[in-house]
C-alpha cells in the first residue's frame, strides 16, 4: 500500500480553500520552517531527503539548490515550472487542481531556504481552470498573511506571481521558460551560463517543478531522513505517476519509488490491469520523451530482475533495453496498439513543438514526420526505416536543448523494439491502409 505523502489531504471536502487546508494541518510545515529553522537548515533537510527533480531530469534538488549564486547582490528568483505539456504527463495538473495550497506552502518553504523574495509560477496557458484555482488560492494566502510582507509575523516576505504561458511545450524547458517570462520568444538559451548564476533578468534563478516544490512541505514536516527512508536506493520518497492508455484505471497515483512495474500495472490499487483482458504490448514509462519498452522489458530487465519504478531500475540496460522514469507519464499500449502510428503521432508533436532554433532539431523532426506518416499509411519504403534511425541518431546529442534527444528517442526506440511492425507496414500496404494492423503482429 503506497503512502500518501503529497496526496494525503486530497479528498477532504473543501481542501482547495485556505481555511480547510489550514485547519487540517496545512501551512504547519511552513510555520515550522520559518519559525524554528534557518534557511540553511531547510536546505539540509532537503539534501538529506534525497529528493530529486520531478520535472523529468531527476537531478538531486538539494544539490541543485546549493548551486544558486547566493553571494550575488542581485535579487534571486524561484520559478515554479507548471508548464506541464508532455504527452502522457498530467500529474502537476492534478496536484494543482486538488491541493493548490500545498504547492504554495512548498514554495514558501523553498523560497525561504533559497533567500528568494519573488516567485513566479509559470503555468501552462491551456490550464484555464487551474489558473483560476491557483489565482484564488494565492489571493487567499495573501489575505491570510501567508504571502506578502512578514509572513506569519516573521521578517520573511514573499510575493508569488502567476504567469500563464502561451501554449508552447518548449517553454517548459527551463531557459526557454525564462525567455518567455521576460516577454521574449521562448527559445532555449545556450548554456552555460546556467540559471543558478544568470537566469531571469540575468539574476540568480532556481527553476523547479510543481511536484518537487510541493514535496518540500512534507519533507520539512517529517524530516529529510524519514522521507529518505521511503523508496529505494537513490530514488527516495514518493512519486506521482500519471497512468493512461489501455488500462482499466487511468489516473494519477502516488507510489513509493521502487514499486515493481508489474504491481503498478496489474494491481487493483493502481492501473488495474490491461483493459478488456488484453495482453500488454508496450509501455512508455516516463512521458513521450523517454524510450518505449516492449512488454517483456518493462516488466523485467534484460538481466531478468524485476523492473521497478525508480530512476535507476527504469534506466537499467541503457538505451538498448532500458528507458527512463522521466516525468512519470506512464503510457500503456495493449496488443492491438499500432506502434508505427504511435511513433508518428509523437513525432508530429515534436515537429510542431520544436522551437526551430537549431538545425538538427528543426530539420530533423520535420524530416522524420512525413516519413513516419507515409509508413503508417502504407506508402513507405523499407530503406526509410533505417533512414529514420539515422536521422534520429544525427539529432541526438547535437542540439541546444534536450528537446532534440526527446524527439529522437521515441523514434529510435520504437524501431529498435518494434522493427517488425514497421516492416509489416511497408510490406503490406493494402492491409494497413484498411485496418488497424496492430493486432496482426503478435509478440507474445
Amino acid at each position, binding site marked *: 500500500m503506497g503512502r500518501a505523502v503529497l496526496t494525503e489531504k486530497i479528498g477532504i471536502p473543501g481542501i482547495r480553500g485556505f481555511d480547510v487546508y489550514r485547519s487540517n494541518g496545512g501551512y504547519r510545515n511552513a510555520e515550522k520552517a520559518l519559525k524554528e529553522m534557518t534557511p540553511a537548515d531547510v536546505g539540509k533537510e532537503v539534501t538529506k531527503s534525497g529528493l530529486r527533480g520531478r520535472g523529468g531530469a531527476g537531478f538531486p534538488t538539494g544539490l541543485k539548490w546549493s548551486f544558486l549564486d547566493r553571494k550575488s547582490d542581485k535579487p534571486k528568483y524561484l520559478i515554479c515550472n507548471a508548464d506541464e505539456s508532455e504527452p502522457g504527463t498530467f500529474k502537476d495538473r492534478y496536484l494543482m487542481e486538488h491541493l493548490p495550497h500545498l504547492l504554495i506552502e512548498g514554495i514558501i518553504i523553498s523560497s525561504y531556504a533559497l533567500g528568494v523574495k519573488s516567485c513566479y509560477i509559470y503555468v501552462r496557458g491551456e490550464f484555464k481552470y487551474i489558473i483560476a484555482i491557483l489565482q484564488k488560492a494565492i489571493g487567499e494566502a495573501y489575505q491570510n498573511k501567508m504571502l506578502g510582507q512578514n509572513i506569519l509575523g516573521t521578517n520573511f516576505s514573499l510575493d508569488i506571481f502567476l504567469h500563464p504561458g502561451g501554449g*508552447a511545450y*518548449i517553454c517548459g524547458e527551463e531557459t526557454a521558460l525564462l525567455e518567455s517570462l521576460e516577454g521574449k*520568444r521562448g527559445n532555449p538559451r*545556450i548554456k552555460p551560463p546556467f540559471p543558478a548564476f544568470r537566469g531571469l533578468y540575468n539574476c540568480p534563478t532556481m527553476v523547479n517543478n510543481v511536484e518537487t516544490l510541493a514535496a518540500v512541505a512534507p519533507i520539512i514536516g517529517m524530516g529529510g531522513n524519514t522521507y529518505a527512508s521511503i523508496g529505494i536506493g537513490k530514488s527516495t520518497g514518493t512519486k506521482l505517476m500519471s497512468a493512461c492508455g489501455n488500462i482499466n484505471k487511468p489516473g494519477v497515483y502516488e507510489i513509493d519509488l521502487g514499486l515493481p512495474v508489474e504491481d503498478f500495472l496489474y494491481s487493483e490499487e493502481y492501473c488495474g490491469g490491461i483493459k478488456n483482458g488484453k495482453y500488454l504490448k508496450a509501455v512508455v514509462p516516463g512521458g513521450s520523451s523517454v524510450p518505449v519498452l516492449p512488454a517483456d522489458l518493462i516488466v523485467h530487465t534484460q538481466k531478468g530482475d524485476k523492473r521497478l519504478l525508480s530512476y535507476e531500475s527504469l534506466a537499467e540496460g541503457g538505451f538498448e533495453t532500458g528507458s527512463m522514469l522521466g516525468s512519470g507519464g506512464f503510457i500503456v499500449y495493449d496488443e492491438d496498439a499500432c506502434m508505427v502510428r504511435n511513433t508518428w503521432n509523437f513525432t508530429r508533436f515534436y*515537429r*510542431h*513543438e*520544436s*522551437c*526551430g*532554433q*537549431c*538545425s*538538427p532539431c*528543426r*530539420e*530533423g*523532426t*520535420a*524530416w522524420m514526420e*512525413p*516519413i513516419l506518416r507515409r509508413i503508417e499509411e502504407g506508402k513507405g519504403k523499407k530503406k526509410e526505416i533505417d*533512414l529514420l534511425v*539515422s536521422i534520429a541518431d*544525427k539529432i541526438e*546529442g*547535437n*542540439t*541546444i536543448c534536450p528537446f532534440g534527444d526527446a524527439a529522437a528517442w521515441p523514434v529510435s526506440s520504437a524501431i529498435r523494439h518494434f522493427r517488425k511492425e514497421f516492416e509489416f507496414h511497408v510490406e503490406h500496404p493494402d492491409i494497413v491502409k484498411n485496418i488497424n494492423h496492430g493486432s496482426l503482429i503478435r509478440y507474445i
Partner: protein
Amino acid sequence: MIKVTIDNITIEVAEGTTILEATRKIGGKIVPPAMCWYSKLKGSGGKCRTCLVRVAESSAKDPRPMPKLVASCSTPVQDGMVVQNTTSQEVLDARKAIVEFLLINHPLDCPVCDQAGECDLQDLSFEHGVVETRSEEDRREFPVIDIGDSIKLHMNRCILCYRCVFTADQLTDKRVHGVLYRGDAAEISTYIQNVIDNDFSGNVIDVCPVGALTDRTFRFRSRVWFLEPMDAHRECRKCSGKVTAWMFGNEIYRITGRKDQYGELEEFICNECRFEKKDRNDWVIEGPRKIKRQSVISANHYEKLIKPSVIQPIEGKMGKKEEKT
C-alpha cells in the same frame, strides 16, 4: 593566459576565449565552419551546429571528455583543454549530418541566386556535403518578401542563423525584425511596417550567410564572380565610408561592407553608401580587395563546386522557386 590544444596544436589564449576563437588564432584547416556565430553580434552562435567539436579533455584539473559534442562558438576554453575538430571522425560525421540537415529544405537555386559565388552554404556543402540527398520530401516554400525598398527576403534560402535578428536588435531598440512561428514553420519577419527603419539596416544583407537577404538595388544585375571587388571610400557623415565596391569595368554594380577571411564585416556601413552611391565619382577607389576566404570567388571554382554538391535539382523543381517580383 591559458593553454588549449586543438587538433594537436597547442596555443595560449586569454581566459574567456571560445574554442572557435582559439582555432581562428591558429588559423587554417582546423577552424570549424561557423554559419551562425558572428564575432560582432552579441548573443549570436550556438544555433547552426556546424561548428561542433569534441572536447577530449575538459581541462587540466578535470581531464574527462565532455559527454557530447559542443558548439565551439559558444564554449569557452579551459586551461589544459584538449579539443578535436578535424582529427575526430565523430565530429566530421556530425558536421556532415548538419550540412545535410541544412540542405534538405534548401531550394538550391544557386543559378538564380544572388549569393552564388559568395555563399557560406555553398562553401560548406562543397567541403562537407554529401553528393546525394536522402530526402524525398517536398521542400518548404515561403513567398518572397520585400523588407523596405532595398532589401529582399527569400525565406526559402534562410537557415535561421538569427544573425540578421541580432543585427536588427543591435541597431534598433524595438523588436522590429525577428522570427515568427516555430520549428520548421519558423520564418524571419519584420514588425508590421515591413521595414527596419534604421540607417544601417542594409547590413543585414552582409551578415546573412546565404542568399536569404539580398540587395534589391543589385538583384540580377550580374554574378559576383564577373565583378571585381575593389576597396573604396568616401567622406560619409554616417559611417566610416569604407566599403567594397563591386565593379565591372568602370561601373559600380554593388556596394558592400568589407569582409574579412571568415566572411565577417569589418565595420557596418550606412544605407546611403550601400544603396545610393553607385556612381564611380562618388568613390575613391583604393585598389583590388583580396578576398581571403576559401570562397569560390577567388578560387574560381564555381563550376566544380555546384555540380557534385550543391545543385542537385529535384526534377521539375528547378526555376520554379524564383517568383515574378
